[in-house]
Structures are given as C-alpha cells and as structure tokens.
C-alpha cells in the first residue's frame, strides 16, 4: 500500500468541501475518483499534493504522515499531479518542459549554474537524454523544440502527463486527463495509463466512464464531499446510489 487517507476533512467558510474521506491506493494500482461536479474531488487532490492543508485527518504515504508538507515537498517524496486546466510551461519548449519536470533528478543550484564545471555539464546531458527518451516513447520527439503552447490540445495533455513522469514519481494524480480529448485520443490515453502501472501508482479523476471502467482497479465515489461508495468497477457500475447521484440511467448500460 502506497497511500492511505484517514478521515480527511476540509472546510471552506464553514461548509465541508471534503468530509471524513478515507481510502487507500495499492502499489501499481489505478484508483479512480468519480462524482458529480463540486463533489470535492479536486479539493481532495489539492490536499493530497499539499496545496491545501486539511482541517483534520492524516495522509499516510509510504508509512509516513505527510500532513503539513508543501507541494514541492510532496513532489520530492514522489507524489506529483496533472491539472484539469492544463498548467504547461507554455513559453518553454516541449523538451524544456520535460527537463523542468525532471528538476528533482538534478542537483545543480543557483550559483553552481553560473559558471559551469565539466562535471556539471554531464548532469545536464543526462537529463536531456532522459527527457528525449520519454518524448520518444510517447511520440512527441519531433516536436521537442516547439514551444509547448504551440502543440495541439491533445498533445498538450500528453505532454503534461510525461512531464509528471519525468521526476520518476511513485504516485501520480491525474485530474480529468481525458477532458477535451476525442474518443480515439481517449483510447490511446487509456492504454498509456494502463502501461504506466508498471512504473507508478495513480489516482484518476475522470468523467469518461469507459476510460474508468477499463483502466481503474478500484473506484471511489464522492458526493457532497463524502465517500458514498467504493469498490471495483463492476461493483460501482451497479451501485444504485451511484447511479442516482452520478451515472444516470443511461450510463449504466454502457
């Protein structure tokens, strides 16, 4: 088990955005987080990555309580994420995006960067090679020198995912990675996520039920900040409460 949430609660101005949320993520698993808009999914992501601190509860990651850590500390512990509204470094090239994502894999500091010693050059070379390899893998290598903002939307999504991978995290949180992708792109993405299971564990917020059914090992359903159900995709699909609150009759058949 890589991550365990205990009784996470977060209030915004007296209203509970997230209340007593508990679930766990097993190593190499994909856990999907679903629920209506405003159910608190993104808030929960913000809590797990340290951007928000909960009013109560604990986040046990690799056996340690991570409450109070800032996002960059979470990242160096191995938790990183993607964003619902893309947060690419738009003015930087695709390659630089990845290399910036691999920040944790380098050591050179502010003043060391100033006048380069040969030994430090090799670090730069290594990071560049690794970044190119990642781009190669996902088919973005020929776009390496383009500014990230110039990529089509679907490729930007992919780039954000690869950037998250570049730091070699052990847990990635994906916030609606398939939003705005068409069905074919979504399929590619689903396959890629399944392929990633070898390298990292994942939590996934997604509305596209087919992606979820196909990729997720477990599903956690949130409504009004509470967990209303969790289980395997097959269990969730037929859970009447989930159908009522989220899926609707239509999706049940799919």
């Amino acid at each position: 088990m890589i991550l365990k949430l205990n009784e996470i609660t977060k209030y915004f101005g007296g209203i509970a955005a997230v209340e007593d949320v508990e679930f766990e993520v097993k190593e190499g698993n994909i856990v999907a987080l679903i629920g209506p808009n405003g159910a608190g999914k993104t808030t929960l992501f913000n809590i797990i990555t340290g951007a928000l601190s909960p009013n109560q509860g604990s986040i046990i990651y690799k056996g340690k309580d991570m409450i109070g850590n800032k996002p960059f500390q979470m990242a160096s512990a191995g938790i990183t994420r993607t964003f619902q509204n893309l947060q690419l470094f738009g003015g930087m090239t695709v390659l630089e995006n990845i290399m910036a994502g691999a920040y944790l894999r380098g050591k050179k500091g502010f003043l060391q960067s100033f006048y380069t010693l040969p030994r430090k050059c090799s670090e730069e070379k290594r990071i560049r090679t690794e970044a190119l390899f990642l781009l190669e893998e996902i088919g973005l290598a020929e776009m390496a020198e383009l500014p990230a903002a110039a990529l089509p939307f679907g490729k930007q999504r992919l780039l954000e995912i690869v950037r998250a991978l570049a730091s070699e995290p052990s847990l990635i949180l994906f916030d609606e990675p398939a939003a705005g992708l068409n069905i074919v792109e979504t399929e590619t993405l689903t396959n890629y996520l399944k392929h990633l299971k070898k390298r990292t564990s994942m939590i996934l917020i997604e509305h596209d039920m087919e992606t979820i059914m196909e990729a997720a090992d477990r599903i956690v359903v949130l409504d009004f900040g509470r967990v209303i159900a969790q289980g395997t995709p097959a269990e969730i699909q037929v859970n009447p409460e989930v159908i009522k609150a989220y899926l609707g009759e239509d999706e049940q058949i799919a």
Partner: protein
Amino acid sequence: MKKTTIFGIIILLFILIVSLVVKSNYLFSILIIIGLYAIIVQGLGILMGYAGQVSFGHAAFYGLGAYTAAILTTRYHWPTIAALLAAIILPGTIAALIGRQTLKLRELYLALATLGFGILVFIAFNEGREFTGGPSGISSIPFLNIGSFAFDSDRKFFVLVWAVLALLLLGINNLVHSRTGRALRAIRESEYAAENAGIDSASLKLQAFIFSALLAGLAGGLYAFYITFISPAAFSYHASIEFVLMAVVGGLGTFWGPLLGAAVIVALSEILREVVPLLIPGAGGEYQIIIYGIILILLMVYKPEGLSSLGAVFDRSPKRAEQNTNKQ
C-alpha cells in the same frame, strides 16, 4: 558552450576596441553608466523575466551598495576593494531578510510592497545623518584601487565595469540554460505546476531576489567609487521605476535585453538632449521629456515584448497563435 565563448569574445573585443579607440571621457562616462545600469537590470531581469516577480524597489539595493562603499571608505577607511565586497553582501543580506515574506505577495501587491521598501530605505538615507550625511550626502569617496593600481580614469573604469558586466552576462547565460534557469521560468509560467515538479518556488524566488540585490549592490558600490559623491536623490523610487523600464524596454527573459534596455534608456536621454534642440530650435528640456514619454508608450504599444524581440521578427513562431484566445 561554443555560443557562450563567442559571446564572450564579442564583448571582450568590444571592450578592447572601445577602450583603445575612444578618447572622449563623456562617451566613457555614458558607457560606464550604461554598464552599471545593465548590471542592475541583469539581476532585475532574472527576477522579473525568469522568476516572474516584479520589484519597484531596486534603487534601494543600489543605494545600499553605494552607501556601504562610501561609508566604509570615508568613515572607517576600509580598503576600497573590501568595501566593494561589503557593498555586494549587505544588500544581499537585507534582501534575504525581507524577501521571504515579501515574495509571498503577488503582482501589484508585490510591486507596491517593494516600492514601499524603496521609499523606506530612501527615508533612512535622508534621516540617518550621522552615517549617511543626510540629504547633503557623502563626498570625497576615494577611487577604487587594487593595491597600488587605482581606477582613477574613465577609461580604466570603463574596462572594469564592462569586464564585470561581461562576466555576468556569460554567467547569466549559463544560469538561464541550466536546471535552475528552467525552474525559474517554470515558476513564471505556472507556479502550481512548478511546485508539483518538486521546485521549491519560495526558496528559488528568494534566491533570485537575493541575487538581483547582490548585483544592484555591486553596481551601487561601483557607482560610489566612480562618481565619488553620493546623496539620497540618486536612489529614490524614480530610479527604481527607471530600472524596471530598462528591463521591460530591453525585453524580459532575453540575453541582450538588459544591456539593450539600459543602453537605449540612457542613450535616448543623451541623444534627445542633443537632437531635440536641432529639430525644434530653442526647445528646452520640456520637449525631451515629452518625446521620451511618447517613445516609451510607442515601444510598449507596438513592441510589448521589448526591443530584443526585434530579432524574432523573421522567426515564424507559431506561439502567437495562442494569443488570440481569451485571457481571463
């Protein structure tokens, strides 16, 4: 590395040729002032163009550097080179002390807070009579010397300032293409995403802030040793704003931007001083001010990315495509 070397050679050649060919002390003094401002704007450029943090208070660091150098040499008779070192370190230390809290502020709030800091330091220069001489300033500051060699002519000082500038230009070129440079730009593009890549944005922004303060202090110390008289007037918020202007006019986040910005703003006012009376006979300083303002506006309206972007005209970058889509 090749490119850095070429840049270095160009600048060295420039220094060599200018220092051999030019005879006019006036021209040297302009180039020295451009060099000093370029040093400050280099640091400010890292802060604004890479870390994405604006500062309207850098004249304070510039002034702190100048006063440190002046006070240590005139009052405590330190060797000039040691005083120059202190002139670099003290502003950096103060930046470290105030930076962490201040840099939590965003955009306009940060601009106002740094402006306020600048005014506070300016008041301190005026009020700390025992140390700073108050509004009357400090005179008889010695020339900078290393052992028996003194930088007592404009030519020598020019070589010194531009050599320092060249070293900085190359260092900064290394910096921005390094892990740290990428991290700084990442912070500017999206702080959330940068944090989630493990970049400690608060600490890195602070480092950039300290770095820019160190450079401003260095320029201030050199200024004191060059003019050999200082008073608070040179370090008011007007100067801070001027530095920001230079940074933006030159182009943020570019290699030549800071040097170009400093050169254009300084040269512009010198050129206007000479040219305006030719165009409008009998014109006083009024027209220079108006024309200066108008040129500034035109630049920002038609070249908002700064002058160094002129070179990019031929570069058919598809980056522009995103600009039409809505900004919220």
